[in-house]
């Protein structure tokens, strides 16, 4: 899927072209090099696969934002059945940047919520590029309380550049809406599993990522601010975003080391994620496993553990008393 995204691809394409020339040459000269050619071809694809396994954090940032990646609605439709979308915050409006509703996952009823980006410009304008406004967060809040009332576990899908940075969003209480959602999720009395599928951008992502378990796709990112923002504020040079992507420790392995996420689901290379049966099966079983584990616990323990998970995050020095 990402064949044209990166500069390093040019080198592999060049090699493949050379190989093609060789193949034609061997036909003209009537020499059979087909075995050798096949070997080299295989080697190239191995090298490329290896390269994709070692994308830099900045390359992962770019890939996480790829419009060809599946969006929240695609994950819901692939992993769940009977999805019924529910709309509106009952206060102001319905925010298309957050999609939510009820569905069936495996053999259980669940509430699913996530930020929704579009896959082309028109769709993206409709979904506000996946940047929720206060009414989106308030819709999510309402659906979460609803899930609690009917004892439905919650699955959230995270993919957003961040909360909407507009005048209207500020006027309608963006900060208040996010804080209420953080408070709500931190003590919601149903199991919550989050899946970071693409771009986990700042507070707008965090608002739906307070969970008993957090699963992250191998090329997804989760960051306090975008590398571009950090570069322009801290280095006064947006072109140095790559350095910041490195420094921010925003990819899945780094966040697993920091114990902010629990599990990583590997993405297949060079194909549509949801078109890859192994990937879909892996993701489904990861969600299912974690949902089973947390659902097996008494609710009071679950809430206590969710609090403890958050409570221990942070690193600092404290003198011995």
């Amino acid at each position, binding site marked *: 899927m990402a064949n044209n995204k990166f500069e390093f691809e040019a080198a592999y394409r060049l090699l493949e072209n050379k190989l093609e020339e060789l193949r034609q040459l061997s036909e003209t000269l009537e020499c059979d090099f087909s075995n050798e050619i096949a070997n080299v071809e295989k080697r190239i694809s191995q090298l490329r696969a290896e390269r994709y396994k070692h994308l830099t954090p900045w390359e992962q940032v770019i890939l996480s934002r790829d419009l060809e990646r599946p969006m929240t609605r695609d994950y819901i439709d692939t992993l769940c059945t009977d999805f019924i979308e529910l709309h509106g915050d009952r206060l102001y409006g319905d925010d298309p940047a957050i999609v939510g509703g009820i569905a069936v996952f495996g053999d259980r009823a669940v509430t699913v919520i996530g930020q929704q980006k579009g896959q082309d410009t028109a769709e993206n304008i409709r979904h506000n590029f996946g940047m929720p406004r206060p009414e989106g967060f308030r819709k999510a809040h309402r659906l979460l309380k609803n899930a609690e009332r009917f004892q439905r576990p919650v699955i959230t899908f995270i993919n957003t550049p961040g*909360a909407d*940075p*507009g*005048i209207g*969003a*500020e*006027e*309608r*209480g*963006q*900060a*208040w809406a*996010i*804080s*209420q959602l*953080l*408070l709500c999720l*931190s*003590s919601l009395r149903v199991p919550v599993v989050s899946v970071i599928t693409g771009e986990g951008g*700042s*507070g707008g992502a*965090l608002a739906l*990522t*307070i969970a008993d378990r957090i699963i992250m796709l191998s090329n997804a990112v*989760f*960051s*306090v*601010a975008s590398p571009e*923002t*950090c570069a322009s*504020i*801290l280095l006064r040079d947006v072109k140095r975003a790559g*350095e910041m992507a490195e*420094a*921010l*420790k*925003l990819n899945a392995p780094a*966040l697993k080391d*920091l114990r*902010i996420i629990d599990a990583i689901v590997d993405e297949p290379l060079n194909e549509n994620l949801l078109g890859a049966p192994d990937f879909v099966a892996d993701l489904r079983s990861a969600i299912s496993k974690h949902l089973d584990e947390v659902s097996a616990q008494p609710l009071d323990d679950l809430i206590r553990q*969710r*609090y403890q998970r*958050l*409570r221990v*995050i*942070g*690193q*600092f*020095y*404290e*003198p011995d008393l």
Partner: protein
Amino acid sequence: MFKPTFKPRKAYIDLSGISKSPLSLDSREGNFPCPTCSTWLSEAEIIKNNDFCPRCARHFAVTAWERIYSLCDEGTFEEWDSGLTSGNPLQFPDYDAKLQRASEDTHLPEAIITGKGIIGGMECVVGAMEPRFMMGSMGSVVGEKVCRAAEGAMERSLPLILSCCSGGARMQEGMLSLMQMAKTSAAIGRLNQAGLLYITILTHPTTGGVTASFASLADIIIGEPGALIGFTGPRVIEQTTGQKLPAGFQRSEYLLQHGMLDIIQPRLEMRSLLIRLLAVHQGGRNGQ
């Protein structure tokens, strides 16, 4: 009437407001232009006026200690967790140097002071953020101290009062910073469930991750006059949307109109308001 005793110190004027003065701080010895109305003020005048401009009532930033002194009964504040300092968990470039500079400039270990104090005879847990310490940004230490303040309030069944001032999450601690939003919100959730009063005072400027977490979760939210309060900063909004910001946008008065604050209270009368609020929450009896 309580009169806080200030230690002699340099006046500190924050020039980060929208109407940034073109004149530099040191262009006239010991005098400063008010960032809002450009009136020249001497340091002595600013201190005499309790850190606001006599012409336009702009509230200048005060240090965290001054805030604590101005709210608590004299000599009653007992600091908690003063030894907590930031490491550099991500080995983020330049962070160590910035921390060192911040603590040298402010003589503080981090961007918040918390502890127990008495306000009008009533015991409370009190905290104040320090605007000069890396813009009051929230990293692991700020998050931890806010949580411990909430937990300390729960252990003692005391109200919690936090004076906020912040540029948001501290980028140099990456996701560890962002998660402090969740951590502090969860702690406030427990405080709510324990039925304890929580009041925040939002001062200039309170933005980003602090506004979008513990600062906005109070039972009563008080703004200082003219304070910039919001999620996204005004410059970023202007740059990303290309829209012209309405007059007074994101200032306390604007937020009060839009339903985000309970009260706007001038700094001089902040303490007396807190005393009244605390007394009503004690069933109308004040602790004295």
